[in-house]
């Protein structure tokens, strides 16, 4: 595979110029060429399925991360008491854990929903990132590729700046506005990008995403500059965090994340075929454009919901899928489910670090994921030849 592939794709994701525009198209050709040299019909598709043992191992890892997240926190709750409290929640089991009412509230109303939400958000971002990398055949694609982040940012900013007295609402309007903005941005991107000819749809879409994101960001900056008093609140939202969440947010995003993640997981086989390129996929009977629309739609709904309650948490959607790709294989039937599981575990652990490293002060979780993510990402770049 061509050594220039990743840098070119990287610049395509950040700026709009003619040279970079060709990058994803070239990449597709490169892969097609590669596919032609190996034995047809399924050259890059090692017919690997997710082995049950691997799945069980991953699930165990997730349960371990969740338990750790529940046991450890800025407030020292006795681990044995917490364990009994957890056991006591099982049906037909009655034990007295010895936690006071306040400690029980800390556990059940603050810590557990935070861990659950971290898992949901991490799983969603990672699986959406993996699906985007497949459907755009671009190793640097992440869930924010088509403008979700910029749209959500604008929505949140508008809500902070123009909606009066946020306290008077039954539900904070900021996540709702962020969700609306995110969906709107992706709809705009898709509407603009779709009109390119069929074979270049990915390039056009990615570029339309760049344009829409820049435009939304410009509007957001303008609104913020006009309402400087909103800077703090918007900044806090953009940094991302799970510091103020409860079961309400879990209930709010669960339907979106559940349906979206399930839809994406079912696309594993189709994504494997689409790795060959749109034309090749079509010749194998896979409607590439329709698959892409379905993936973008599902990923957008789920990501928008996640971003709406957690703010912008970066890098999860890139590093988790790539780590799995490097370690466990390149079939999307493996990458997608494991991304969901490890994404959840990763974000739960990152959030654990965010709330305990400087306890009782918090570190923005976006800082943690990027701090861990950036060095890891460099490693991925160095081993880029293995990514496809």
């Amino acid at each position: 595979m061509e050594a220039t592939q990743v840098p070119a794709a990287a610049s395509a994701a950040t700026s709009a110029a003619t040279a970079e525009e060709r990058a994803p198209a070239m990449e597709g050709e490169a892969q097609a060429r590669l596919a032609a040299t190996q034995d047809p019909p399924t050259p890059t598709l090692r017919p690997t399925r997710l082995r049950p043992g691997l799945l069980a191992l991953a699930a165990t890892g997730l349960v371990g991360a969740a338990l750790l997240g529940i046991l450890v926190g800025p407030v020292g709750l006795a681990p044995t008491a917490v364990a009994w409290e957890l056991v006591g929640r099982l049906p037909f089991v009655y034990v007295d854990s010895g936690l006071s009412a306040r400690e029980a509230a800390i556990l059940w109303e603050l810590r557990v929903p935070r861990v659950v939400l971290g898992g949901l958000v991490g799983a969603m971002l990672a699986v959406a990132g993996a699906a985007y990398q497949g459907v755009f055949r671009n190793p640097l694609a992440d869930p924010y590729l088509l403008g979700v982040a910029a749209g959500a940012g604008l929505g949140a900013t508008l809500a902070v700046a123009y909606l009066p007295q946020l306290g008077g609402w039954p539900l904070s309007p900021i996540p709702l506005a962020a969700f609306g903005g995110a969906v709107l941005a992706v709809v705009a991107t898709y509407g603009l990008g779709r009109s390119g000819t069929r074979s270049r749809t990915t390039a056009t879409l990615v570029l339309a995403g760049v344009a829409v994101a820049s435009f939304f960001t410009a509007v957001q900056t303008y609104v913020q500059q006009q309402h400087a008093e909103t800077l703090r609140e918007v900044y806090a939202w953009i940094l991302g965090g799970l510091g103020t969440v409860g079961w309400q947010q879990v209930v709010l995003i669960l339907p979106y994340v559940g349906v979206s993640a399930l839809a994406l997981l079912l696309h594993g086989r189709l994504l494997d075929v689409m790795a060959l390129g749109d034309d090749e996929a079509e010749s194998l009977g896979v409607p590439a454009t329709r698959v892409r629309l379905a993936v973008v739609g599902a990923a957008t709904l789920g990501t928008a919901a996640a971003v709406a309650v957690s703010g912008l948490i970066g890098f999860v959607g890139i590093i988790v899928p790539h780590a799995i790709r490097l370690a466990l294989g390149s079939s999307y039937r493996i990458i997608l489910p494991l991304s969901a599981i490890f994404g959840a575990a990763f974000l739960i652990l990152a959030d654990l670090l965010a709330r305990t490293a400087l306890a009782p002060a918090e570190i923005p979780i976006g800082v943690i994921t990027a701090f861990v993510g950036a060095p890891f990402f460099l490693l991925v770049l160095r081993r880029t030849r293995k990514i496809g």
Partner: protein
Amino acid sequence: MARLPRLPRALLPLLVALSLLAAACATATTPSPNTTTAPSPSPTTTPAPTPTATPAPSEASYPVTIEAANGPVRIEKRPERIVSLSPTATEILFAVGAGSQVAAVDQFSNYPPEAPVTDLSGYEPNVEAIAGFDPDLVVISNDPGNLETSLEKLQIPVLLQPAAQRLDDTYAQIEQLGAATGHAAEATQLVADMKAAIDRLVREAPRFPEPRSFYHELDPTYYSVTSKTFIGQIYRLVGLKNIADEATGGAPDYPQLSAEFIVAADPDLIFLADTKCCGQSAATVAERPGWDKITAVKTGAVIALDDDIASRWGPRVVDFLRTVVDALSKLDGATSSLPTLVAVGS
């Protein structure tokens, strides 16, 4: 091979047009000096702790040199067209009786009401817009874009008064503004009045055998203040224990606290400095998950502050302290030597 797709190219002019439009809007709203200059014939109604109106001092001999945070500032004659980009400085200027000399204040200087508010921004000040007011003194609290250098090129003296670290800084800034504007006597009087009022409040404040704890909230994501901050020191004057002080070792002076830590710390008092910005109230606090277990919430000791008063370091810090002392006196066990039984889970 890959030709430019049609639509994005067609869209480019549209995007350019839109961004130009946005830029045009931006310029249209930059402050035009003529509209807002007219200084209301303000009858110098001074805010809270008013010094008895001392007549214009005779000792005001110009030029004066003020030792400010940005070094010595030389002022040639009594300033009559002051531009204040600091809400705190605005409050001080009016409190020392220099209100009639103020030509324009920034968009956040909302007190006193007669201050000539413009849409000048204290965050991103536009030098030309400031110069358009033809000021003979500009007061700022921070200097993001090298404003001082630019204004000095225009022979406009700039007084930098950064956020106070302690009460003495406030007193010094009041004296500086008094000396700069020819109201040194009023400034001295204001400082004396503030000190007396604060002393009295501290004396009147109820004492508790066990120090009462509090949580000061800056925004709904639980940013707070430690005792190292200006506002944190005010609480210390009346012997309150700040739960945020447990955030040490690398944590900032304005830490973001974990929700579960706040619930576990179980403060006796919660002070909300995010009522205006973010619509928080005792009711919204009570609805937060787990917060109904906090003593302050159970006993109704959640105090809504005025965000502005709680974030400025001007004369109204006395009002802030009074609010705190009032809240303290309503607590169980106040002034009595016998502590009443309050559920405190350590």
